């Protein structure tokens, strides 16, 4: 007999015991471990998803902040540029003003120098011309310069208008006539001059003589508030104007070279 029924019964019991034991020691622990791991994976994924969401939110937030920062920076930059431009304009205006002041001061200095120069020039040229004229007149015409000057002055007196002559005569009666010249007139010339004046005014007047070395070459009559003169001074006027034009030209060139 191939089937032993006792063995069959025993094996049935054995198998059921094995099922119980394996359920206790094999399937239960293994399945629960698998479930735990699966649950933990699910949890991890959920956590990762949530972290990812948070990270996205944070990223959005910081992106927004960054944009705001960029905008604020742009505004500040524009403000700064405007400030700098304003400051530059101010500085340029100040510099221009200063330059103008310097230029004015320089022009003033130039003018003062020019005036001083002309004064000095007049003196020297007068002196030199006197010497030359005196010498040349003495050498060529054998006449003294003073005589010529007095003669010339007398001619001018004669050429005066009648109104002017009356005014001069009226004034000369009260206080006399002051005669100024750069050199002391010799007695002969004084007489000659007195004659000329008497002839011109039609009456005899008292003449007072003064000599001023710094005076330009010529003769000057002062009667009360009136003044009558003849000399090289008038010739110097043209020379002065020419030199002044020269100086102005130089000053213009210098100001163009130094903006």
């Amino acid at each position, binding site marked *: 007999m*191939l*089937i*032993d*029924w*006792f*063995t*069959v*019964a*025993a*094996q*049935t019991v*054995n*198998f*059921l*015991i*094995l*099922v119980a*034991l*394996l*359920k206790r*020691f*094999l*399937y239960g*622990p*293994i*399945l629960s*471990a*698998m479930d*735990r*791991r699966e649950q*933990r994976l699910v949890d991890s994924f959920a956590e990762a998803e949530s972290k990812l969401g948070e990270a996205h939110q944070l990223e959005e937030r910081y992106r927004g902040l960054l944009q705001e920062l960029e905008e604020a920076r742009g505004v500040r930059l524009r403000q700064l540029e405007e400030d700098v431009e304003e400051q530059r304009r101010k500085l340029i205006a100040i510099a221009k003003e200063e330059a103008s002041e310097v230029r004015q001061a320089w022009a003033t200095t130039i003018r003062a120098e020019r005036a001083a120069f002309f004064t000095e020039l007049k003196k020297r040229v007068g002196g030199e011309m006197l010497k030359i004229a005196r010498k040349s007149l003495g050498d060529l015409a054998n006449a003294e310069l003073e005589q010529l000057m007095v003669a010339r002055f007398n001619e001018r007196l004669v050429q005066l208008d009648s109104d002017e002559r009356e005014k001069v005569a009226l004034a000369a009666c009260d206080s006399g006539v002051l005669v100024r010249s750069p050199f002391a007139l010799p007695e002969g010339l004084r007489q000659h001059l007195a004659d000329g004046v008497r002839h011109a005014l039609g009456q005899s007047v008292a003449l007072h003589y003064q000599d001023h070395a710094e005076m330009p070459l010529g003769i000057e009559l002062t009667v009360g508030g009136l003044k009558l003169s003849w000399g090289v001074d008038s010739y110097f006027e043209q020379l002065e104007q020419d030199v002044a034009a020269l100086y102005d030209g130089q000053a213009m060139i210098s100001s163009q070279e130094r903006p």
Partner: protein
Amino acid sequence: MEITPDIFIYWQWHGLKINATIAITWLNMLLLVLGAWLVTRRMRSNGRLSRGQNLLEVLVSGMEQQIHDMGLAPPREFLPFLGSLFVFVLFSNLLTVIPGYMAPTGSLSTTTALALCVFLSVPLWGIQRRGLAGYLRMYIEPSAFMLPFNIMGEVSRTLALAVRLFGNIMSGSMIAGILLSIAPLFFPVLMQLLGLIVGVIQAYIFAVLAAVYIAAGAQMEQQRETGAES
């Protein structure tokens, strides 16, 4: 020539006895439970898994998947029974490579016991799922005329289940023994290898057929559930 380990009796008292089949079954049970306990006592659900745990997880999850594919739901309800069938038969068959080992599955008593368990489990799950009336109605469908045939089918498939496993395992040992007497070199080794393959296949077939029978017993209920779901 012994064709069953039942005949080796180690201890006997009146009707009670301990033969090789029972003793070797106990040994198998001990090894299985001890192995499972050794692995599962240091279970980890995180970090690196031990090799044993990995192996057992692959085995258990594979069986669970197979049961699920058979249409048995939930698979964990059937896993201890069907899984134990597979593991016990597989372990018994694989140990035949050890010289002197006699597989308990080579005993018709053992295979009959296992087939009886399947035979009893089918109506148990059927009644649990469909109720007693529902289960019994299955025998008179499609008509009451089919009742004897259904009963015969139920019995014969249990017999077939028992004999198929016994025949395959026993024949492996028989063929090895016969070949050993006529061609002592090489051939027995090849037949042993063949026996291993046959053992694995038979374990799979036994468990799958058991699952199919149980599924057939609970099928109507499942169909109704599926219909209700859809």
